[in-house]
């Protein structure tokens, strides 16, 4: 019995880090295109300056961990990285709403599912 319990705890300890990094919204994108996402591609997208001279980093700053500032209104933007702001990337509709708006503003077009997945993979990797 004692052995079983220890084994269970050990198994949990191994499994937990993976469970903690899983994100249902990201899983949804992954299932949608059956592809893989990378931190590097997401980071590149985050810093890509579009036709309106705006990048994600323009408002969200160089690090998704920082408090950002709206380019037009100066309003403070809560950090993007879930490691410092647990509310981020928890609701699929909210995530989709902001991708639609911000991809249009920064890139002048909609983002692909691949891009959304890469972006999230990058932001979720920031500890």
């Amino acid at each position, binding site marked *: 019995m004692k052995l079983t319990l220890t084994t269970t705890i050990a198994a949990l300890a191994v499994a937990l880090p993976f469970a903690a990094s899983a994100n249902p919204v990201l899983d949804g994108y992954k299932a949608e295109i059956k592809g893989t996402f990378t931190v590097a591609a997401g980071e590149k997208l985050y810093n890509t300056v579009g036709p309106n001279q705006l990048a994600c980093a323009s408002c969200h700053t160089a690090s998704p961990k920082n408090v950002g500032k709206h380019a*037009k*209104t100066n309003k403070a933007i809560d950090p993007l990285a879930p490691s410092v702001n647990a509310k981020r990337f928890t609701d699929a509709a909210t995530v989709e709403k902001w991708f639609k708006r911000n991809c249009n*503003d920064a890139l002048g077009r909609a983002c692909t599912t691949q891009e959304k997945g890469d972006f999230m993979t990058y932001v979720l990797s920031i500890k």
Partner: protein
Amino acid sequence: MTIIKPLLVAVLLASSFAAHAKYNGEDRGKPMLPAQVNAKWQAECSGCHMVYPPGLLPAASWKKLMTGLDKHFGVDASVAAADQAEITAFLVANPSNRWTATTAPLRTTEGEWFKAKHGGIKAEVWSRAAVKSKSNCTACHTGAEKGVFDEHNIRIPN
């Protein structure tokens, strides 16, 4: 006497019209914010900027503004169709109750009352970092988001 009577009526009509047509009829509402506000309006609008009390503009302005959210002053601010309908209904139900002009500006700062009230403010004040834009009411009007714009609640930042 038969001439004077209609004349008197005409003068009375004209003066009462003039009272309503303050700022050429582009007058903000009072009260500017209802006691009960819509939660979606609060959440969505405050996502990017201060919440502008619906009484600042006439209903026609809000209708126009809410149908162009994908190009909202150069920014994509689109919301889900159901939220758009709900927020529009709240704005249109609580517009300026003093606006008699047929104009429907998208910017509060384009109204005659705004220009009349802010005419004495130097360009240097508007360009201060803490102000930045004429649309940033809260920079000086501390109660702006609660619909309070009276002179007792003004604090001009340096």
